[in-house]
């Protein structure tokens, strides 16, 4: 370690500092109305749908609660949206999703959405899908209890360990660097689990009520322009 430090000083120590430019204001206002958009896709032959809800501010109790809600709703075979849309309704074969599609819930620093997306058959309607989604989300608050949270924490830990060991251990370097860069505190890596354990059913319910409301979401539908092309079906 002493050798590594000496090399770091030797090679990086002489690089001059420069003034860091001011970070732009990237804040987002509270969304008050549900938004919906359609994207024409000239290469797709099946429709697809994505639903995104704005995330709570990073590192707040609600943020950690949303991390658990990601586990409860989206991640793994026992997640409620998987069970509803795949197992029960058979609308799709898989629900993709999570917090930060370009990384994970820890390595961003600003507004973000929790999102999920599915592809589905032309015979299934967007309304059928969204009705099923709403059935899950609308009924969620009443189901929240400590056991649900405990199970979500186990899944969260498992995913966190996967990420830390991922890419030959690079996941660990990624979180250490992210926390140094964003929070000036890479040791946060060792307190993540405690933050999730602090989440109570009340915080989860509060998070559902404020952040999983319809007026906080954006729906994006892919309109498949090749849907009726015989060669692609």
């Amino acid at each position, binding site marked *: 370690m002493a050798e590594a430090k000496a090399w770091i000083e030797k090679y990086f120590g002489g690089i001059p500092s420069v003034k860091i430019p001011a970070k732009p204001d990237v804040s987002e206002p509270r969304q008050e109305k549900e938004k919906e958009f359609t994207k024409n896709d000239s290469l797709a032959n099946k429709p697809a749908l*994505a639903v995104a809800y704005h995330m709570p501010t990073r590192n707040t109790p609600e943020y950690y609660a949303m991390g658990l809600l990601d586990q409860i709703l989206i991640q793994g075979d026992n997640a409620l949206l998987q069970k509803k849309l795949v197992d029960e309704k058979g609308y799709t074969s898989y629900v993709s999703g999570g917090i930060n599609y370009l990384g994970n819930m820890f390595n961003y620093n600003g507004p973000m959405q929790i999102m999920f997306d599915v592809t589905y058959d032309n015979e299934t309607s967007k309304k059928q899908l969204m009705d099923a989604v709403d059935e899950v989300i609308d009924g969620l608050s009443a189901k929240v209890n400590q056991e649900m949270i405990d199970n979500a924490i186990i899944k969260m830990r498992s995913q966190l360990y996967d990420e830390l060991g991922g890419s030959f251990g690079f996941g660990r370097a990624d979180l250490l660097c992210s926390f140094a860069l964003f929070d000036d505190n890479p040791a946060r890596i060792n307190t993540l689990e405690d933050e999730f354990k602090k989440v109570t059913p009340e915080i989860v319910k509060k998070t559902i009520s404020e952040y999983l409301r319809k007026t906080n979401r*954006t729906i994006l539908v892919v309109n498949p322009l090749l849907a009726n092309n015989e060669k692609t079906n």
Partner: protein
Amino acid sequence: MKNKLLLLLFLATGIVGFAQNDNAQKKKASEFNIPVEYYKLNNGLKVILSQDKSSPTVIVAAYYNIGFRIEPKDRTGFAHLFEHMMFQGSKNLGKMEFIKLVQENGGVLNGSTRFDFTNYFEIVPSNKLETMLWAEADRMKGLDITQDNLTNQQGVVKNEVKVNVLNQPYGGFPWLDMPQYANTNWYNAHNF
């Protein structure tokens, strides 16, 4: 050149090896404990060391405080373009030599541009740590920004979008599309 310097110097360099140390193993199995040593050089560079002895490899990661949503309005695309330029050589290492240096030592490397940072990393046998620190510092100090390299990589970046996004079914859906629809602040919502 000025812009490049603005991108530098505010990074975290992490050096990570593998394995729990003895102390960590003695702790409860449920406890999560990664060794973290954190300090700053006089120039402000943040340094993190995290030792792991489970395999004779070392990871060098350099994170720069510039991502595609925090770029200045008149400089969008620079973070990604510089990510590419970082592999095009410096005054000391010619084009492709950085990549060869890692790969011919049995290592792997990559870089990426994210919302709030660009990163570069190498995973190499641990006896090559000094070499990698030298090479990472070398390209931090200065790149070989020639018109040829720039034109070449502008083309590469443009074609990345064409191949991976524009000419793919569901290309950009939803990872690239949704931020543009869900957000209202230009920094989050512009077409990256």
